């Protein structure tokens, strides 16, 4: 079952490349086009299952909207810094490696949610720092992907800021459903027991994502 689902999801070499149509649009663009980039940023989050798994892990035990917004904003902050610096500074990192780290970030959140760090290290690393760090890595990965296209210098900063705004909007949209579902589930007695299973599955999915990308790095170079 898990095998079938995974095969259906993993249709492409990169965790979530831009669609051909969107890539053509980005390449042909001259000047600022904030609205399309907000849309692309939101789409990137809503349709990227690696991002979605990470977000499920992040909000699993958050139940106040205020906390959800704080964590999401920290992620966006990290994401914005490296996306802007990466594209403007011409910094590139292998996309497979970045996507592997994104997979490991899912493992990290799942492991933290089952209390792994408390049991193993005796304390819980500051989740806010971790979320910020992973935001930085996610942004770097996207900066690398965006540079594969011949981006017009014209209006580039506006477009990138628009993209980051879209990332924030997309996360909030996706999380609205996740938070509602979790809030409902949390009221039921089975939550604590199934929380362990769910987060273990997150860890597993993260390992698959990371393994997929590491294999891609080794095999496809």
């Amino acid at each position: 079952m898990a095998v079938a689902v995974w095969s259906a999801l993993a249709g492409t070499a990169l965790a979530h490349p831009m669609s051909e149509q969107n890539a053509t649009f980005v390449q042909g663009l001259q000047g600022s086009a904030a609205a399309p980039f907000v849309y692309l940023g939101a789409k990137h989050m809503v349709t990227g299952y690696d991002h979605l798994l990470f977000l499920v892990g992040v909000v699993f035990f958050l139940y106040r909207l205020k906390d959800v917004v704080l964590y999401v904003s920290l992620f966006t902050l990290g994401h914005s810094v490296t996306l802007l610096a990466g594209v403007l500074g011409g910094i590139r990192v292998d996309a497979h490696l970045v996507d592997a780290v994104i997979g490991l970030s899912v493992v990290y959140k799942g492991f933290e949610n089952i209390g792994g760090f408390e049991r193993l290290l005796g304390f819980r690393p500051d989740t806010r720092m971790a979320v910020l760090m992973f935001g930085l890595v996610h942004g770097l990965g996207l900066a690398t992907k965006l540079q594969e296209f011949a981006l017009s210098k014209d209006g580039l900063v506006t477009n990138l800021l628009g993209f980051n705004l879209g990332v924030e909007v997309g996360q909030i949209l996706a999380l609205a459903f996740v938070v509602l579902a979790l809030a409902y589930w949390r009221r039921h007695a089975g939550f604590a027991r199934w929380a362990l299973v769910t987060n273990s599955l997150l860890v597993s999915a993260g390992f698959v994502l990371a393994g997929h990308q590491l294999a891609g790095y080794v095999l496809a170079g």
Partner: protein
Amino acid sequence: MPDTAPQAAQEPPSLRTVALATATAFVLAAVILVTAVLPAEYGVDPLGTGAAFGLSALADTRPGVVAPATGSYRSDSAVFVLRPFEWIEYKYRLEEGAGMLFAWEATVPVRYDLHGEPNAGPEYAESFESADRQEGRGTFRAPFTGIHGWYWQNRTTSEVTIRLWTTGFYTAIHEFFEGGSTSRTLDDDRASGGDGS
């Protein structure tokens, strides 16, 4: 909605449970990777599961590399001399999905517009690319059945010469200019189209 206790208030699972859960997660991930992801994505099939379930076929498929075409293979070349502010349109009839290799060059930069007109509405044109350039080259694949080609305009005050070369699966050539147009249906053989200069 009642405030339920956040995670901090709950006792985390025991170290044994954490270790068991993590190990299970890792083993499950390894099994999925080796039996399904590696064969399907990269054609690496250490246990033979990719071949057994037909997953390896996914790794062998490269969509879009070969696109079979109907219709005759043709080549065409044309030379246009445009006086100041004169324009010309030169288009090929292509079926949806039919491809064409092209290259054109001008003596100075010209305004161009690569566009297509579907059969249904001659009034309607869809522009694919438009700019001021001195040359263009590439592969064109018709997104719909109709006539597809270039509009060029000389926006300088001196004469411009434009040369065009194409190869593809087109069936007719249409030329439009100030005050008229010509159309040629190409013979259904392998001979190349005429020189349109």
